[in-house]
């Protein structure tokens, strides 16, 4: 209900409903995100920042939170923090071009014009008709005294602006189409409500009711993500892998930029022993979110126990320790090296692991075993 109220701009009512939801389940990151959105709409940016951070704390993978957080920080005139937030981000959200634009704006305000220009250029590469980014780039280039290039982008900016104005006029001149738009909007809202209802039922363990709501939401709105995500999880647990896989495919088609959906597909394919396809999906997920480690872990499982491609496993494990230099990661690298017949590599890695976790008896025993292996192989 909160979502429905919000869709119709009844913000106060939306927040009331969401607060009731939080009383029942205070771990609903999406609710905090919704409330952050309302706070930002009402220019209560400090509150929006706080709520976004709360949502992130509960679910670091919740889509769009980083973007909303960055927007609120930008509105508060805190460009350094915008950069901090977006630099952490993998830019795999649907708002990637906007994120680059926000970075451009932040660097521009900090007068780091080269970095501003680089980010505006990235935003424009993703969305060539991005008028604001084009203006930002022209501004950064002007400040860098690259007058000729700046003039080109100023010219392009004026062209884009003219096109935007034309589009607005066209939209205003086609009010009759509003009826269709309203219907689409209503369907979208109902689907979202059904999807949210499904989550509530799942939260209370009423899985059949949850499934029915999700199925209805997915049927109503071919782009509804929440319902499909819920169904994937439900079917995977029930062992209905083919159904889950179909929904995973739909998710990757609807939101091809979302690393999570590719990674989930990969894990599911691995469970179904389809290792080559699993490797492909996992690699795609890693490509989209290169700084997030769960994808590397899953891929290592596939490479070492599925395709048994140890040389690749060693390469992936090396990437993992760079991102996450923990005893666990070095242990995996050690194992991959060992499988790849790289005993010195395996020993070096396990040595580093024992340094990081000197109290682990298990690591010490593995290290001892590898040392014995080396002694045996010595001429």
């Amino acid at each position, binding site marked *: 209900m909160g979502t429905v109220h919000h869709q119709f701009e009844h913000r106060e009512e939306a927040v009331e409903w969401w607060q009731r939801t939080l009383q029942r389940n205070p771990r609903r990151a999406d609710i905090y995100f919704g409330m952050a959105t309302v706070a930002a709409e009402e220019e209560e940016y400090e509150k929006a920042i706080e709520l976004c951070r709360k949502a992130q704390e509960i679910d670091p993978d919740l889509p769009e939170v980083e973007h909303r957080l960055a927007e609120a920080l930008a509105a*508060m*005139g805190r460009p350094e923090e915008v950069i901090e937030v977006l630099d952490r981000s993998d830019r795999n959200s649907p708002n990637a071009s906007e994120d680059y634009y926000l970075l451009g704006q932040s660097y521009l305000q900090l007068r780091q014009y080269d970095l501003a220009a680089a980010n505006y250029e990235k935003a424009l590469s993703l969305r060539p008709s991005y008028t*604001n980014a*084009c203006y*930002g780039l022209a501004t950064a280039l002007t400040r860098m005294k690259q007058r000729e290039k700046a003039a080109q982008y100023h010219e392009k900016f004026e062209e884009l602006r003219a096109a935007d104005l034309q589009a607005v006029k066209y939209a205003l001149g086609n009010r009759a189409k509003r009826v269709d738009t309203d219907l689409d909007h209503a369907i979208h809202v109902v689907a979202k409500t059904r999807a949210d209802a499904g989550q509530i039922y799942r939260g209370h363990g009423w899985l059949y009711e949850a499934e029915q709501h999700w199925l209805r939401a997915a049927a109503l709105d071919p782009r509804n993500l929440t319902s499909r995500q819920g169904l994937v999880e439900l079917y995977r647990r029930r062992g209905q892998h083919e159904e889950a896989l179909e929904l995973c495919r739909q998710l990757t088609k609807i939101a091809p930029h979302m690393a999570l959906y590719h990674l989930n597909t990969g894990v599911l394919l691995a469970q179904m022993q389809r290792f080559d396809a699993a490797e492909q999906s996992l690699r795609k997920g890693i490509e989209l979110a290169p700084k997030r480690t769960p994808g590397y872990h899953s891929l290592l499982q596939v490479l070492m126990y599925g395709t048994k491609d140890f040389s690749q496993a060693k390469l992936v494990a090396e990437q993992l320790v760079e991102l996450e230099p923990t005893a666990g990661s070095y242990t995996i690298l050690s194992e991959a090296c060992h499988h790849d017949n790289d005993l010195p590599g395996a020993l070096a890695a396990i040595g580093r692991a024992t340094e990081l976790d000197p109290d682990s008896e298990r690591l010490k025993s593995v290290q001892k075993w590898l040392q014995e292996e080396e002694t045996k192989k010595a001429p």
Partner: protein
Amino acid sequence: MTSLNDTAARRGSPHNRARRSMLLAAALCLAAIGADYASCAEGQVQLHDVMPTSGIMFNHTDGGSGKLYVMEPMTGGLALFDYDGDGDTDIYFLNGAPLKGSPLRGNAVANQPKNALYRNDGGIRFTDVTEQAGVGDTGYGLGVTVGDYDNDGDPDLYLNNFGPNILYRNNGDGTFTDVTEQAGVADGDQVGAGTNFLDIDGDGDLDLFVSRYLIFSYDMEAAQTALTGYRVQSGPQSYPRVGNSLYRNNSDGTFTDVSHASGIRSHEGHGMGSICLDFDNDGDTDICVANDQCPNFLFQNDGTGRFEEVGLESGLAYDINGNTQASMGIGCGDFDHDGWLDLYMTSYELELATLYQNTGDGFFDDVTRLTRAGVGTLERVTWGCDFVDFDHDGNKDLFIACGRIENYIKESDHSMSYDEPNTLLMNTGDGQFVDVSADCGDGLDVNLCSRGAAFDDLDNDGDIDVVILNWRQPPTILRNDTVSDNHWIRIRLRGTKTNRDGVGAHVKVVAGDLSQVAEVHSGRGYQSHYGMDPHFGLGKHDRIDRIEVRWIGGGVDVLENLPVDRLITITEGSSSPTQ
């Protein structure tokens, strides 16, 4: 009639005794009734509504007939100036005039709405002297400026109307004569906006810039139906853009139209507020025009009166996102003490009023978000504005006049109000502004539909008061009753080789580690005029180390080791002030 007494603000003077009494009263107030400390605290700006006792009876009309013509909500500005040279600040209010279809149209002239001149009798008491002064123009007033165009020692008045404009020459005896025709500055039959006197070519007399809003005729559709179902004024985009005008003073009481020759007319927009400033510190005066829903103009002067439009390159044409704004008024001041004049532009609802920081290398950065200078403006339509140091702490604060334009706003959106309170943002001195509107006394509780705002010392007590023209309502007079031990200086310039009032002169005041600059501007804010004597808060500094005046044309006068808390006059070529 009270001139600013040179002893008035010395320590131990009646003014300071009065201030100490107020401090005592404030302390008693706290002790007796436990009042909110913030409302009585020393240094907290206090603006009190003294309109009811001011003697001002003016009531604005927009001349509307229900047709919702585009200029109706745009009127208008006001002027603060000492028309009779008696040492205190008088007020000139612009008024609308009956538009086509108005029931007032065709009435006898005596019954027409007209502009009004109020003489300051001291103590913020005013007398209507419109008739005896002869300045009751019945044209449709939009913009006004003041300048001594004939260098005879008294201020003249120029009105930028919908319809022919008016130049009133001050006769020096409390009366004015309409000299528009012989001066040649009627500017056709246009929809006017801001207007300014400036010396474009450093020849010692004041030339005239006239901004225009749009091309209008009564046969154009005036109103349209909004999505809410209510009829609203068509925006400027529904009308053709128009170029502005520039008139060169021939030094013989006449002007020559140099709009084309100067490069000004080559650019068309929807002009509103305008200000003439030396943004690049090269010694000549440039022109900035706030345009409504199209890019703002910055005309850079080459020193000879030829201008190049550099709004886009300088970063002033658009906000930081590259969006045009419905720019309304322009405030000008050095908010960050870097020696370069910054600009503040008001705008429409859902747009932030924007602070453009002059970076000193030909560019302006939109620092609205960084400085929080747009707080509270997003949901309002904002008009008159300027940088004013209300508490004399040496930092220029921002006053913003607010008011909607839609007649039916409340019916179509219950969360909206047709009348809005004005806004005061305090400059904290570290590059940030804080909204203190709720703590500034009853003056900021006034909920009307403001347009032009003007700032000057009405009661000669050293601090800056506020006069606001409200659309279709009486004006607002806010007396500054801030209790503070901070010091101040007001500087009146007298040109001898350059124009008489020093318009365009650049003043730098250094007191200890506090360095500030200002310029003398004719025409500023939202289509208004005020503040011919640059005013500086000095904080706790009780001596001024140095005042440097750079006159138009490059002459520099330097004065050192000066007392504070007074109005001084600096005459061009002199090394000591008069008081």
